[in-house]
């Protein structure tokens, strides 16, 4: 029961959502819209799971005074302060541009998040210097293709037109062909996985008893 009911639900809902695509009748459309609506409501609770997990982890670290607990306290203060300013002064109007809630988003969250990801520029430069080697024919092809693409951002005078033509050719012919093969694989693989889930062959989502 604990394992058969979920499998039955997956199969039932899955096959309904599959066949409704082919049946343009109002009753099927109504049930389809209900299913989408219910899934979105359930999604709200699912998203909240992640928030609870994170908060629980930080609270546990602070309570046990584990290594670096001070930083977890900073995170918790940030979390609860955002919730406070998101509710107390303006309620839902806190989401409007110009409120303290949005100012914290604009001047604290955006700069830190953007800066953290900008560190990747340094890492890619370091990787290019230390690891990007033309050791084999395949690596050389990759290297040459990458350099041609990178040169499109460098003014090369009369060679710029030639480089732009080469970039356009690489992107629209071999790159396009390679990525098409990739997407064909994704499509077939995703279809096979979805079928396995609906037929109860793939049951990883259930966890262990």
């Amino acid at each position, binding site marked *: 029961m604990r394992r058969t009911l979920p499998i039955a639900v997956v199969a039932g809902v899955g096959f309904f959502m599959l066949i409704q695509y082919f049946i343009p009748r109002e009753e099927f459309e109504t049930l389809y819209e209900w299913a*989408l*609506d219910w*899934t*979105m409501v359930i999604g709200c609770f699912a998203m909240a799971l992640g928030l609870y997990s994170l908060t629980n982890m930080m609270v546990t670290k602070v309570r046990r005074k584990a290594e670096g607990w001070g930083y977890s306290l900073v995170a918790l203060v940030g979390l609860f302060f955002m919730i406070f300013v998101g509710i107390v002064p303006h309620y839902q109007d806190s989401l409007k541009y110009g409120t303290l809630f949005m100012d914290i988003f604009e001047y604290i969250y955006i700069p830190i998040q*953007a800066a953290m990801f900008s560190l990747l520029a340094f890492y890619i430069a370091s990787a290019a210097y230390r690891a990007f080697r033309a*050791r084999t024919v395949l690596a050389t092809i990759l290297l040459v293709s990458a350099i041609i693409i*990178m040169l499109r951002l460098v003014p090369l005078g009369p060679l710029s037109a030639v480089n732009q033509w080469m970039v356009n050719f690489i992107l629209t012919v071999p790159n*396009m062909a390679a*990525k098409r093969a990739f997407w064909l694989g994704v499509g077939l693989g995703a279809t096979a996985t979805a079928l396995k889930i609906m037929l109860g062959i793939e049951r990883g989502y259930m966890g262990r008893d």
Partner: protein
Amino acid sequence: MTFYERMMNLDRRWVYLVIGLVVVVTAIWSFAVPLYVTPEVRSVYDFVESLVPGEILMIGVDYDPAALAELHPMSYAITRQCFAKDVKLLLCCLHQNGPGMVEQVVAQVAEEYGKVNGVDYVYLGYKPYPGITILAMGQNFRIPFPEDYYGTPLDSLPMARTLTNFDNVKAIINISAGSGTEYWINYANGRYNAKLAIGVTGVMTADYYPFLQSGQIFGLIGGMKGAAEYEYLAEKGGYITREKGQLWASKSMPIQTTTHIVIILFIVIGNVGYFMSKRKK
């Protein structure tokens, strides 16, 4: 240790320092970078240009601050072009940390052009499960979004009274940094035949050329260069001006140029060092 071996074992912080210096020096002593506008960016601009006042364009903004540098300039340029042409905008955000990004763009640009929420634009907000949300929007916007981002019931907004689903918008431009683009292609264009163009980060750009060739998307704005191309066209069209600091991506293009030269040199030096140290053995 030979010179080449020392070169290969260089502390990575020296590499960081060189990159940092190049970026800072270029930021201070900037220069103009010639731009070649690609057909895939021009097709998006030309489409927006072809819209007439009163028509509705949907913009699906699915990115967070991590992709700000590449995608925010696209959002600003397209929004300014639409508001200048009195084209109405329908916006949504299906990325969990992105709603504030859309609010930032739409609030600032709406104020510049005197546009009114609910009349000239509607911002639907965020919902979880992007694929399911897009499918629901294809049936009726009110299923996922009974209220807008600000909590106003959709039916009380004058602009939303004419909106049922994707059939009522001229096209969708999805500006995304993650898997959101796949959902828009698969569900909005795949199931509901919505006319779709995409703006994506540099990392993702190369992956979507098959959809451009197959006609599933009619335009592709790729990364910061794509954003700079769009800004170039929008500046020529008189929708944004350099003096007001509205060419965001274009400001960073000189840094792109010098940093790319340095990284190419690093690759060459790294390979020279590798082959020289291999030969010595």
